[in-house]
Structures are given as structure tokens and as C-alpha cells.
């Protein structure tokens, strides 16, 4: 519909409005071009400083070296394995944490006694730096993918539970009363009122969890792994292959951004 309006701009709106819309467009173009410029300048400056040896490319790498590393990783075929593993761990961790966290939040909403009993423990769990549990996790579930996914889940799940529970509890009391006056039972109140009204909060939890699950996975890979982007970063820094570290970091940026973009698309779908 928006597009249509734009096409008919001259016919439908006054001159002032036309100029107003044009100004918005101009601003948008300006901001986008500045963003691109900033990116290009950063890359260019980095490359330049490395080439003239003002910064030591051995420690700071450089865009061209990152590119070469990238190409050689692809041609050796190992890149896809590393990306695949990290992506797999992150997505599984993300899904488990979101689903399980929401499920726990539902239970806590449902049962007030349970909620009050568990409240202090949840608060403690939330403030605990989950990375501290790393060594214990490895002892309990063994090293490798299971430990990494567990780490990822641990990091995301508490905040998911807390946010979703608060969203459920913050539903308008009068709306609940309205449902009751129509004789809805608790299950109906949950399905027809509480859950749909918590969708906006759920979407923002999804966004937070995208970021957090990458943190969790990379932390997990730092602790124990034999493959994955986090592994490449640790390995690269131990053997002073800074190019490898930088390449992996750039890839991480791209992947995390991509996942975030997917969530944004889902969000748009929901909001219509």
C-alpha cells in the first residue's frame, strides 16, 4: 500500500507534503551513504596503515590478509565445517533455551506458590556469571558439543524465563476479569489472552537471545572444543595466527547479523 502512495505522490498530496517526504528520503540516503563511507574508510585506513607498517600486520592483520585467509580456508574445505559446527551449536542452544525458558515461565505463571518459592533462586541464577559454571559443565556432561550447547542454554535461559514471566504477569488485570466474566478457565485465559498479549515481549526476547546464544556458544568453544569459529579464534591466538583470529571474528559478525536479520523478518510477519 505504501508503494502505491509513493507513486501517486504528486496527485494525492500537497507540495509541502511532497517536500516533506523528499526530505525524509534525502535524510535516509545520507545516513546510508555515511554508513557505507565509514565502513570503507575503516577498511581502507586499516589496510593502508598495515601496508606502510604503522601498525604491525602480524598483530593487527589487515583486510587483504583476512581475505586471503578466508579464500584458503574455503579452498581447504575446512571453513564450512567450522561454520557449520558453530552455527549448529548456536541454533540448537537458542532453540532449547527459548523453548525451555518460555515453558518454565508458563509454569511459574500458572502456579503462584511455585513462583514465590523459586523467586530467590532465579534471582541468584540470573546474577551469577554463567561462565563460572564452565568447568563444572565439562565435568558433568563431558566436553564437546554437549558442553557448548549447555553453556549456551544456561546463558540464555534465565533471562528468557524472567522476561517471559514478567510479560505474562503484566497482562491487564481487567482483561483477565473480562475473560473470567465470560467464564473462561485458566487454560483459556492463558491461550486466548496471556500468550497473545506477550508476543511483543517474546519477539524482543528472541532478539536478545540471538546475541546471547552467540556469546554462550563462543564461550563454550573457548572452554572446550576441537572445531568451530570459537575454536579457530582460540587456536589462532595461541599460535599467533592473528589473520585466522580476525577472519573468524569477521565471520562471526556476519553470521550473528544474519541471524538477527532473520528474527527481524519474523517480527515483521507477526506485526503485520
Amino acid at each position, binding site marked *: 500500500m505504501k508503494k502505491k502512495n509513493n507513486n501517486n505522490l504528486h496527485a494525492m498530496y500537497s507540495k509541502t507534503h511532497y517536500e516533506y517526504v523528499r526530505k525524509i528520503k534525502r535524510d535516509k540516503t545520507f545516513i546510508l551513504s555515511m554508513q557505507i563511507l565509514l565502513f570503507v574508510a575503516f577498511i581502507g585506513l586499516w589496510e593502508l596503515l598495515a601496508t606502510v607498517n604503522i601498525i604491525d600486520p602480524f598483530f593487527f592483520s589487515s583486510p587483504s590478509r583476512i581475505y586471503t585467509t578466508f579464500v584458503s580456508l574455503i579452498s581447504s574445505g575446512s571453513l564450512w565445517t567450522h561454520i557449520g559446527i558453530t552455527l549448529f551449536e548456536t541454533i540448537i542452544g537458542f532453540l532449547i533455551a527459548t523453548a525451555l525458558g518460555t515453558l518454565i515461565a508458563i509454569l511459574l505463571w500458572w502456579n503462584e506458590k511455585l513462583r514465590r518459592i523459586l523467586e530467590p533462586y532465579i534471582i541468584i541464577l540470573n546474577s551469577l556469571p554463567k561462565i563460572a559454571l564452565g568447568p563444572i559443565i565439562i565435568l558433568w556432561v563431558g566436553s564437546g558439543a554437549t558442553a557448548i550447547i549447555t553453556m549456551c542454554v544456561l546463558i540464555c535461559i534465565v533471562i528468557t524465563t524472567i522476561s517471559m514471566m514478567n510479560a505474562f504477569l503484566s497482562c*491487564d488485570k*481487567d*482483561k483477565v*476479569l*473480562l*475473560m*473470567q*466474566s*465470560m*467464564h*473462561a478457565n485458566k487454560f*483459556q485465559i492463558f491461550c*486466548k*489472552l496471556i500468550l*497473545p*498479549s506477550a*508476543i511483543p515481549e517474546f519477539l524482543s526476547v528472541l532478539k536478545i537471545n540471538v546475541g546471547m546464544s552467540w556469546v554462550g556458544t563462543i564461550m563454550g568453544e573457548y572452554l572446550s572444543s576441537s572445531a568451530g569459529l570459537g575454536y579457530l579464534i582460540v587456536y589462532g591466538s595461541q599460535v599467533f595466527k592473528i589473520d585466522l583470529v580476525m577472519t573468524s571474528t569477521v565471520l562471526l559478525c556476519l553470521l550473528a547479523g544474519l541471524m538477527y536479520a532473520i528474527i527481524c523478518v519474523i517480527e515483521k510477519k507477526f506485526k503485520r
Partner: protein
Amino acid sequence: MNTLLKFDNVDFYYQTKTEEIKALSSVNFEVSDQEFCSVVGPSGCGKTTILSLTAGLLKASSGKILLKDKPVEKNDSRIGYMFQRDHLFEWRSIWKNITLGIEIQKPQNKEAKLELAENLLKKYDLYAFKNQRPSQLSGGMRQRVALIRTLVLEPQLLLLDEPFSALDFQTRLKVCDDVYEMIKSEKKTAILVTHDISEAISMSEKIIVLSSRPAAVKSVLKLNLKGKTPLEKREDPTFGELFDKIWKELTNEEKK
């Protein structure tokens, strides 16, 4: 006309951690079938409490509340409740909003109720908005949708808790008229809680004036104003007189 609702010496206490709040003190009144009855009283006196008790959402501490000679109970389908705000669910279409009660109660005569819903929408000029979202409707239209949502369940008694107070004055007069017409033409009994005396006078056949907390019935006024609609009733020569009378009773109360 026969009595539909009867409050017989009803007391009600709210329990809180620190104290027991007496909200109603021996409340007695009756509402006849198809009567439009308003309840006015100082704020916080216990008007909403009376409606919640009638709807069975609260239980009287003592005394009896009878609907057609039978005690009201929780989930009494003879009663419909309309709140101060319309509480339409934004994520549902208008149609899905007004059929919410049918969805919840899954009545046997579902088809008939759906048909009623459709007819009500048509009758009150909302059919064109059937598939729209509540946010696309004006405040007055939203209140009419909220009323239809209640009417679809075919309650005998409608409870209206300040349903117009969120609207601006002009819309309010219009919506009063609409709601009055809907309630009368569907032959419903209604209890309207309001803090607007003129609204009470223009809409009702009976006004119950409450004292401040704990609420007791101070007086019951039976009115018979000329005019078909609330707007016309405002033109009645005795309107001002009635207004003064109720105003004095309420302000006396506040001085005390």
C-alpha cells in the same frame, strides 16, 4: 413488573494483610426485569464491588443476592459484564472479538449465537468492519463492539461499570444513546455504574444513591422522564430538579 435482581442485606468485607475493609453495609435494593438502573455514589464507595458481587466474581460476606429468586453463582451465564475500557483484544479482528465468549463457552446453540452476532453487527452498522482490527475503530465504535461482545452471550442482566468514562463528551452523549437503544431494543435489564449524575438521570428508570464507604443505599429514585432517547430526556423540565436533588445527597455525603 417482576423483580430480576435482589440484594438482601448484603455485607461485604475486603480482606487485606493489615485490615478488613468493610465495603458494603446492609445493601438492599431491587431491579425489575427490563429496567435500566443506575448506581451513583462517591468514588471508592463500593460501586464496582456491587457489580462484582452480582457477577459472582466476589462472594458476599453475609446477606443474599438473588437473580430470579436464585442465588447468583460464579460463572452465571445470565449475567454480562461491560468494563470501563472496552478491552478489545488488538490481535483479534472485530468478528473474533465479539465471538470470543462463544469460543470460550462452546455453547450447544453455537450456530444460533454466531448468527445473532452477525445480526447485531449488521443492525448496529459495524458489519463493514467485521474483519478490521480494533485499532482501526473510533472510541465510540469500540464501545459498541464491546457491548455486542456481551450481548452475543444473551445475558438477562447487563452490568456496565462506567463504560463511557474514557470517551470525550460529545462521543459520550452519542454512545450513551446508542447503548441505550441497543439495550432497550434487545430487551435487557441493565445496571449502570456512573459518577456522572446527568448520565444517570438521562438513561435510567431507577437511580440508586449510595453513601460513602461502607456503601449503604441512601435513597432510591424512580424516574419517568419524557423522551425516547437519553438525549431527549435531557430536555425534560424536571431534569434540573432531579439533578439538584441527587447532587445534594451526594455532596451532603462528602461533607459528613
